């Protein structure tokens, strides 16, 4: 993944992070929470150019859910509403017991992709998502067993060390997701993404998330460096300052910028080929 990939017009994988698990309708009145709402947003985002749909599950009142049964409801609704997009289940969950963190992997069929948080991070003043190496290894082992492609979540440079240390244990191509924002995520600055990309061995694919107002500039920089992008209301609620966004709007903007920069938006089939996925 290099500037040469940009020059070569490599297709861009756009991931839509539709809902997340931290904020809800108290933060954005149209943030999708129920399976039906998530499915509707998923269909709109697929039509706008997203080939990967990053999914969390919630209770009817918007609170977090981790059970395989609830993820099954969400996944079934999304599959019914979409044509061919890749489903990616979150295995994140601050304060949730380790056993629950495995549940999103156990739907039928299993998701093609799942997130894998690569180390500790803080929440609020008193919570930490520990993501011990033992938990990371056990989640990864189950992903391998179920042919689920892990997206390694690199919240900061320490997590890059952790990711590089297991590179040989990953199917080709390894897929790393770089996150930029506040707190225990990396400071959002173009030079920090440049440093990350320079540290990657050849053959590694990467994706970029920028939280809040950093979503647009950091994902655009990723396009120039041959990387992929994730957008959506999980990471950013606004289209511009003071104007709430929809998931579809954020995906459409990312697709438009990618095309303008000479990188076509990857179809689901192209995404499967680029990332080495097993198929829906």
């Amino acid at each position, binding site marked *: 993944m290099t500037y040469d990939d940009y020059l070569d017009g490599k297709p861009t994988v756009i991931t839509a*992070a539709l809902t*997340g*698990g*931290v*904020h*809800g*309708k*108290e*933060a954005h*009145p149209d943030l999708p929470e129920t399976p039906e709402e998530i499915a509707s947003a998923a269909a709109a985002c697929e039509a706008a150019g997203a080939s990967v749909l*990053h999914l*969390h599950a*919630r209770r*009817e*009142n*918007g*609170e*977090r859910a981790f059970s395989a049964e609830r993820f099954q409801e969400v996944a079934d609704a999304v599959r019914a509403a979409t044509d061919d997009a890749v489903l990616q289940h*979150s*295995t*994140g*969950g*601050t*304060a*949730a*017991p380790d056993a*629950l963190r495995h549940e999103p992997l156990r739907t039928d069929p299993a998701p093609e992709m799942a*997130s894998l*948080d690569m180390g500790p*991070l*803080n*929440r*609020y*003043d*008193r*919570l930490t*998502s520990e993501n011990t190496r033992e938990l990371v290894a056990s989640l990864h082992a189950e992903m391998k067993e179920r042919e689920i492609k892990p*997206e390694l*979540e690199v*919240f900061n440079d320490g997590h890059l060390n952790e990711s590089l240390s297991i590179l040989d244990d990953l199917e080709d191509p390894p897929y790393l*997701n770089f*996150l930029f*924002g*506040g*707190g*225990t*995520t990396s400071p959002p600055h173009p030079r920090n993404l440049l440093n990350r990309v320079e540290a990657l061995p050849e053959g590694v694919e990467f994706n970029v998330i920028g*939280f*809040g*107002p950093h979503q647009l500039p950091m994902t655009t920089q990723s396009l120039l460096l041959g990387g992929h992008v994730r957008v959506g209301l*999980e*990471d950013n*609620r606004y289209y511009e300052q003071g104007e709430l966004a929809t998931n579809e709007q954020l995906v459409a903007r990312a697709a438009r910028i990618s095309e303008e920069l000479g990188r076509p938006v990857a179809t689901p089939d192209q995404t499967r080929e680029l990332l080495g996925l097993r198929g829906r």
Partner: protein
Amino acid sequence: MAYREEGDGRSFETARAFCTVTESFVQPMRADVCNARYELDPAADCEFYVAPESGSDSTADESESPDADR
């Protein structure tokens, strides 16, 4: 904490967790603390629960809260 359909100038179809200390609807992750799920303890894990007792101010900033759980 209480479950309400209205409060803080907003209304919802389904009752949501409402913090009676901050007088605002809380984020879903915070609701897990309020409900003492997953062995969380509101007295120990919620800065807003403790703050009135100690008289200290929270440093939490939720103006733009990235989802740290991927």
